[in-house]
C-alpha cells in the first residue's frame, strides 16, 4: 500500500465514510467528522504512519487536502 492509499484508508476507517467521498472532506462538513471523529482520525493517521503529531498540527488538520500537506511538510511523508 502506498502512502496515499494508507492516508485514504485512515479516513475511510476512522470516519466511516466511503472512499469516493474522502477527497472533498472538510472538518465538520459531514456528521462523521465532528470533534469525536477527529480524535479517531488522528489516532488512525498516527498508527498508519507511525508518527506522533503535535497538537498544533492536529488542530490545523481541517481537510483531507490540508492533512496531506501537514504530513508531508512536518512529518516527511511523501505522497
Amino acid at each position, binding site marked *: 500500500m502506498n502512502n496515499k492509499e494508507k492516508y485514504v484508508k485512515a479516513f475511510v476507517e476512522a470516519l466511516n465514510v466511503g472512499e469516493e467521498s474522502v477527497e472533498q472532506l472538510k472538518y465538520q462538513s459531514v456528521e462523521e467528522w465532528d470533534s*469525536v471523529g477527529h*480524535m*479517531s482520525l*488522528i*489516532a*488512525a493517521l*498516527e*498508527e498508519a504512519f507511525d508518527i*506522533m503529531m503535535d*497538537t498544533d498540527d492536529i488542530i490545523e488538520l481541517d481537510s483531507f487536502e490540508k492533512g496531506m500537506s501537514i504530513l508531508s511538510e512536518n512529518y516527511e511523508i511523501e505522497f
Partner: protein
Amino acid sequence: MGNVIVTGSNRGIGKAVLEKFAVNGWNIWAHGRARNEEFEDYISGIASENHIWIRPVYFELGDDRQIKSGMKRIFDDKEEIHVLVNNAGMGYYDTFQRTPVRKARELFDINFFAPYEIIQLTLRKMVLQKKGAVINMSSIASLDVNEGDCVYGASKAALNMLTRDLAAEVGRFGIRVNAVAPGPVRTDLLENIHLKRIAPHVMEEKSAMGRMGRAEEIANVVYFLATEESSYINGEVIRIDGGRK
C-alpha cells in the same frame, strides 16, 4: 489483565501501585525520572516472579520533549495500552504570599501539565482500541481547605476537573477517567514536606481512623479503578483518607 503505564513507580505510592499490578499479572511500563540500576534490578526480580514484563521508561516530567520521546518509546513497543496511572507528582507546602509565581508554575507543570500531555498522547492509542482507563493521582488537598496548600491544592484541583470533564468527552470510546484523592500516606513526599513541620500524631488525629494511609491502600483503589470491577465508575474523584474528622 493487560498492560499498564505507571508514572513515578520507583518509590512511594507509585511503587505500591506497580507491585499491585505485578502480582495480578499485568505487564508494566515503569516510569521513573532518571535511570536507576537498583530500580531495574528490583523490577526485573518482580517481573520474573510474576511471569510478566516490566519495562523501565525514564523521563523528566518538567520537560516536554522528554515526555514525548519517552511516550514514543512506549508506543514503539506496539502493545496495547489498557491503563495509564498518572501517579508521579510533587508536593509543596507554604503560604500563598511566600509562593512566587515561578514556583506555582513548576507545580502546575509537574502535577497538571505533565499528566495532561501524557494523557493526550495515550488517549490516541486508547481511542483506536476503543477501551482504556486513566487514573490520576490527586489529593485531599484538592478538596479540603488547608492553609499552606493553596498552590499544591490548586494544581491537584485542576487535575480533578480535567478528570471529570475528560471522562465526559471520551466515555463514548469506552475509556474511563477517574482520580483518587489520598489523605496523608507516609512516603518521602510526606516526610520531606509535612513531617518536618508537624508531628505525625497531628495528621493522624485528623483521620477518623486515627492513622495515616498505607501506600498499598491507595494502590488497591487504583487497581480497582483499572479493572472491569469498576466498569461503570467514570469521572470520579475518590477520597481515600480513612474518613476525616
